[in-house]
């Protein structure tokens, strides 16, 4: 019969004590990961954001443009907007007349006597967060980019302020920040959505004309909007593949 290997108690304790740090480290890793999973640590690749705009619901109050300026500290002067509201007045003949006094923040004054108006409506505008974004393509330094969750962002510590992206954007969604001297634009309120909040414009919209959500989510207000409406994107011919979808907009909307 073979002799059983023996281990003295002292030897066992010495060996065991050497392993304690390893065992403890190994034990803590899953706990950290577990905690992260419980807290819902943000993982960008799990998300794909988009916005829907229902033209029939927009009342042109301008609360969105105002809230955007507050939330994102956009300069208050006109001409600096991350989002704004346009009024389209379609006459009997000829092209639509479009105006947006101070982005709609102070309302839309009546335009006086107009006998040739066929219909009129409001169109909220913002960065379309294109899948195939021209602004990202032209940036010479890689300061603007599409994040993993599909939001086009600007790295304002890296932007050199060359304005190429402002020229390239077919939607006029970018401006040069007057004091920071970098390109600035809508981020879908990235600091809010990654925190589980709605973008400021969607939060304050009184008539739910703006709907925000994830494209992959099968039951959501965005999904409902996309399902039950005739949807267009702006300037589809440019192949930018926007992720802002307009319901109830027609060919007049540019």
């Amino acid at each position, binding site marked *: 019969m073979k002799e059983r290997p023996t281990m003295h108690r002292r030897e066992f304790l010495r060996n065991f004590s050497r392993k304690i740090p390893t065992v403890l480290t190994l034990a803590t890793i899953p706990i950290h990961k577990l905690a992260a999973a419980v807290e819902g640590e943000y993982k960008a690749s799990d998300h794909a954001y988009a916005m829907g705009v229902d033209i029939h619901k927009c009342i042109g109050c301008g609360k969105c443009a105002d809230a955007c300026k*507050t939330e994102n500290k956009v300069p208050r002067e006109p001409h600096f907007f991350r989002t704004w509201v346009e009024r389209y007045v379609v006459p009997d003949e000829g092209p639509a007349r479009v105006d947006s006094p101070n982005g709609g923040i102070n309302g839309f004054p009546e335009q006086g006597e107009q006998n040739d108006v066929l219909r009129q409506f409001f169109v909220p505008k913002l960065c379309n967060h294109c899948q195939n974004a021209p602004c990202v393509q032209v940036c010479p330094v890689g300061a603007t980019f599409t994040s993993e969750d599909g939001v086009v962002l600007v790295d304002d510590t890296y932007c050199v302020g060359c304005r190429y992206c402002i020229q390239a954007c077919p939607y006029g969604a970018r401006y040069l920040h007057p004091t920071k001297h970098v390109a600035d634009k809508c981020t879908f309120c*990235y600091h*809010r959505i990654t925190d589980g*909040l709605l973008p400021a414009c969607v*939060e304050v919209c009184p008539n739910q004309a703006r709907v925000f959500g994830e494209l992959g989510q099968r039951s959501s207000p965005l999904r409902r909007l996309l399902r039950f409406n005739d949807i267009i994107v702006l300037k589809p011919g440019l192949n930018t593949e926007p992720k802002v979808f307009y319901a109830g907009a027609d060919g007049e909307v540019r």
Partner: protein
Amino acid sequence: MSRIPQQVIPLVVIFTLALAALIVGRQLLVPESFGDLGHYRADAVGEVAALDISYAGAQACLDCHEDIYDTKQEGHHQGLSCETCHGPAANHAEAPDEFLPLVPRGRDYCTPCHGYNPARPSGFPQIIEENHNPGESCLTCHNSHNPATPESPQECAACHRPIVNQKLVSHHTNVECTTCHTVPDEHMSNPRLVRAKRPTEPETCGQCHSRSANSSKNIPRIDMQTHGNRYNCWDCHYPHSPEANR
């Protein structure tokens, strides 16, 4: 050594130095996380995400003001976020006593949404500020958290102002809305659920426009049998402004 041509040695030195300069230069100039996720600085994503918020979101308000939330849920303002009227309140949610949000009381807080504008969608309640109890605060009659008036408005213009205004300057100015539309009483208090009815057959227009109609001589008449053949009247005419300028 003699096998390597003499002129190659300085070239090798120059190329090595250039390569070293390139590597060192890249290390110094390219930011740390550049290229981790794409042709951009991956850390920038976190920097944008870490910005401060100003609007706390309706959920944060509900945590303390459940009573107001309940009131709001009963009325037409149920879809409205608190901060639409009360302004950004993230600091109030952080330190409730230190910062107080706006408590708007003036008329100018309601009119940005409810002032008449012809570009607003029909059905959205709108007033003409000069005619609607001028000088009075909106809060005298309306509770902003549940803004239904003590009595439901009986005139259609309260919500359908653009259509009423259009009709007002048309030949149909004297035609009551109810001549053509049947309006259930419930529509006044619950407009989105109980709809007013549109006419379904040409006879509605025939009340005045058919050859045999008992109406004023000046009203244009048509032969109900042949006019417009298989189309309904409103397929061609817009009843709220019927060919006003033509």
